[in-house]
């Protein structure tokens, strides 16, 4: 890690001003991604502005939805009784991520900005457009087992690694920020960017913009849900494929559906077409299979990750069937 300057702030204003004054500064929250990558010298900020003292730690749940402070730790959010009761999908996703120690450190705001686990991104000796724009992508013709099959470009096939974000994508979250230009309320689907020609730009956040909260609409009809994470070991591993799914079934007909995918997309992947393929159909395996096929339509694979297409189809069917079985 390079030498850094460190500043701890206790309010949004000073934090934002500190970053405005220094283009080479960033916010430090849980540190689990940032310090990891700074030690590898993948990220090299000159100044870290510690926002842990800013009291953005409230979780408010009401009939209008939920508002979660950006400094809430992953474990506190997952185990919050009302979140666990009303948004079990979010709790389940959070608890499937990382380890208890990391979940005690990682924050909601930080997790929105979690970086990819692409082996090449993490190794500064290799070509990577995300880390070093214009240097190329060693993963495309290299070892690409954990890489994305959806949303890729010729410049980047790195997977978005967060579990929490997959649930937030399914739950239609809104990201609230405060920055030099005032407040913004960003729908989740617009928050992360596809890599395209600029994989180094991962979100719509501007320099100095501070995530203050994430809000969730009321979970109307989405309590029957499942976060299914498939990985190479039983715990403490990143997803090969993950499915956040929720169904509202009335009679035998599907009246509402949400599907989002993890481990396969360059950003948390909301599968809108698959949802549309479900609504109004009978809740049976044939419907689920059709919808599952929709989730991976247009997938672009590489030699080591081609299995993710079939795996994801099956995972979607499994997640939907599990919800059906439980309802």
């Amino acid at each position, binding site marked *: 890690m390079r030498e850094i300057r460190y500043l701890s702030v206790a309010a949004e204003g000073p934090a934002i001003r500190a970053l405005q004054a220094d283009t080479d500064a960033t916010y430090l929250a849980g540190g689990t991604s940032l310090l990891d990558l700074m030690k590898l010298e993948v990220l090299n900020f000159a100044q870290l502005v510690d926002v842990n003292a800013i009291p953005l730690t409230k979780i408010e749940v009401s009939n209008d939805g939920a508002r979660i402070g950006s400094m809430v730790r992953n474990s506190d959010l997952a185990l919050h009784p009302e979140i666990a009761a009303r948004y079990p999908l979010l709790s389940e996703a959070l608890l499937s991520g990382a380890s208890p120690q990391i979940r005690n450190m990682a924050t909601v705001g930080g997790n929105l900005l979690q970086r990819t*686990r692409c082996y090449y991104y993490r190794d500064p000796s290799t070509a990577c457009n995300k880390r070093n724009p214009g240097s190329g992508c060693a993963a495309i013709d290299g070892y690409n087992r954990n890489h994305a099959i959806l949303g890729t470009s010729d410049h980047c096939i790195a997977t978005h690694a967060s579990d929490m974000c997959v649930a937030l994508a399914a739950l239609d979250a809104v990201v609230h920020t405060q920055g030099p230009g005032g407040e913004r309320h960003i729908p989740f689907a617009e928050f992360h960017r596809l890599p395209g020609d600029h994989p180094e730009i991962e979100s719509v956040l501007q320099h100095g913009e501070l995530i203050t909260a994430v809000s969730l609409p009321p979970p109307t009809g989405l309590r029957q849900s499942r976060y299914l994470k*498939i990985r190479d070991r*039983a*715990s403490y591993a990143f997803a090969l494929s993950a499915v956040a799914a929720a169904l509202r079934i009335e009679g035998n007909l599907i009246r509402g559906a949400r599907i989002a995918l993890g481990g396969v997309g360059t950003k948390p992947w909301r599968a809108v077409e698959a949802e549309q393929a479900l609504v109004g159909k009978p809740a049976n395996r044939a419907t689920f299979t059709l919808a599952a096929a929709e989730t991976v339509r247009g997938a672009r694979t590489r030699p080591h990750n081609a299995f993710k297409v079939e795996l994801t189809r099956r995972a979607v069917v499994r997640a939907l069937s599990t919800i059906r079985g439980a309802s």
Partner: protein
Amino acid sequence: MKKIGPPVDRVDGPLKVTGGARYAAEVPVARVAHAVLVLSTIARGRITGMDTGKAERAPGVLAVITHKNAMHLPPQPTRETRASQGDHVLQLLQDDHVLYNRQPIAIVVADTFERAQHAAHLVAVRYEAAPVDVDLLRTRTAARAPHPPYHGTVAQTLPVESRRGDVAAALAAAAVRVEEVYTIPAETHNPMEPHATIAVWHGPTHLTVYDSTQGVFEDQRKLAASLGLPRENVRVISHYIGGGFGTKGAVWSHVPLAAMAAQKVGRPVKLVLSRPQMFGPVGARPQIEQRVVIGAGRDGVLAAIRHEGRSSVSQFDQFCEHFTAPTRALYKCPNLDTTERVVSLDIATPCQMRAPGEVTGTFALESALDELAVKLAIDPLELRLRNYAETDPETGRPWSSKSLRQCYQTAAEKFGWSRKKPQPRSMVDGKLLVGWGMATATYPANVRPASAIATLFADGTALVRAGTQDIGTGTYTVMTQVAADALGLPVEKVRFELGDTDMPETPTSGGSCTAASVGSAVHQACLGAREKLARLGNGGGADPSVDEPFAAQLARHGMKRIEARYDAKQLETRDRYAMRAFGAQFVEVRVDPELGEVRVSRAVGAFAAGRILNAKTARSQLLGGMIWGISMALHENTVYDPKLGRIMNNDLSEYLVPVNLDIPAIDVLFVPEDDPYVNEIGVKGVGEIGITGMAAAVANAVYHATGRRIRDLPITLDKLL
């Protein structure tokens, strides 16, 4: 021998659970500076330029050492001059050649760790890179015979070819035949404690090194040879080692480099490898491809086995994985051909990794036997019993002891093997497929010369010392028990010290030889001390019929202490008997038929390995070995980028080893075995046998669950979709 055997708690346990056990990098040394290695980022070529200016000017930096300014060292060993199996060709900044990715090419020393680490990133290197060849299964490089001396398992140099009978004719005549290829990727040891070295010079010619090593004497010899010092000028200390599994059984480049750095800066230097630096420059299990051809009668009696294959090695050093060793020893079979070949690739030198040869060979052989059993519709356990080797099939010698039949029986009973439904996919648990598999485990009983010294004190306590290591195996504890037993003292009155080249010489802790070798020496040294005491005579008038405590005897003779040293020799009986430990592994898996996820849900292993010195620590070793087998079957895979020749999954997030949730309840059963021939204390060693056979047992269980035979490890879910 009442102190031997009971499940005594580890004597070093309280220190390990309080943080008091001090591992190599934790020894407080005044004025210690921190060194960080710079490793190559290409796998083959030359360094054409290095810009060290930025690093040298960075705050706190004391030195940047490259091939331009490194001290000139004696030449590295050649094929003719290598001293031992662990005598690797090291990369000590003597030239601009790059032979593998992550080769040490510079070392940066600074006053703090953070400064050294950052400065290491500031060294800019230019290369002339050549195309690389790192994949055993895709290379066009021809396999070749390994150069002698074959760089094999501890204690013996094994033949790379063997022939008995007429395999071709027997295969042609055999009623059934199985012929399959089995592949194992490179695996990386990854002990929890990374390699770590502190080097302290006392003047220009004397060096003390605190090192995380499985062999302090090998370390001493290699350091002395590398640096051009007399061996006695180098002292190596290693009191606690955070796991080794083979990677710390050899000396790698960073050890002499730490000493070179310390000399350069005139201060003690601490060098700890980062986790990514553990992938490449400190060994790995080689990539291995094996072909097994078995011919048998309809009754399952083996007619012939051909076992041949190749393993990867570096371009500049020696190592041969002896995967055919278990095949030569395990079953009665009149016709046998075995051949081991190596392929030189642009990789770092592989090395021993837990049960080298035995574990890789049993994966292929025990999978192939399962395939034969399926073909013949004979129960796999019954097939093995029909081919039971009552004597060593290679030499015809009797076994010093062999209790494999009892192992099969004990484990099968505990597991409930007789309830197995033979058809694949015939056993289910809800939506999950259940599969049962079994395999044989075996490991040679190695003993190497060892010495020890025992001192009895007038206060009734004893100190026993041997230079050996405790790599988590329980050496501190079992040697305390062996000594207490020989001296007739409670274990609390005995202190056993180890891990220091100033103590009597012992072998490297590898090949499961420490308990047998050092245990025998400790036993004899303690008996020697008692004899010495007895020889003093009964001058004080005590009643000779009473077993007088030695404290009283010493007091009577006005002595503060009495000391005896023993230098162990090989027992002559070793040439008259074949000596191996054996075991039986039974595994149950649950497989999700849609998602391909495999979880081991149950495992039973029964082992006969001579006398068990401590039922508690021995069980832990066997348990650990079995879990390593599960890990090998389902998880471990060192992946090289084909163009960069660089290991890409170079951390504990992407190089997978099991977590707690992956591991089910496991039964470890001991089959009692009294072996009067193997060594003085009847011990065969249990550090490695636990892993052998296990990967095949898992693969066989996966076949039984799914009907899919996976011959390419690891068995990841994509292979079962």
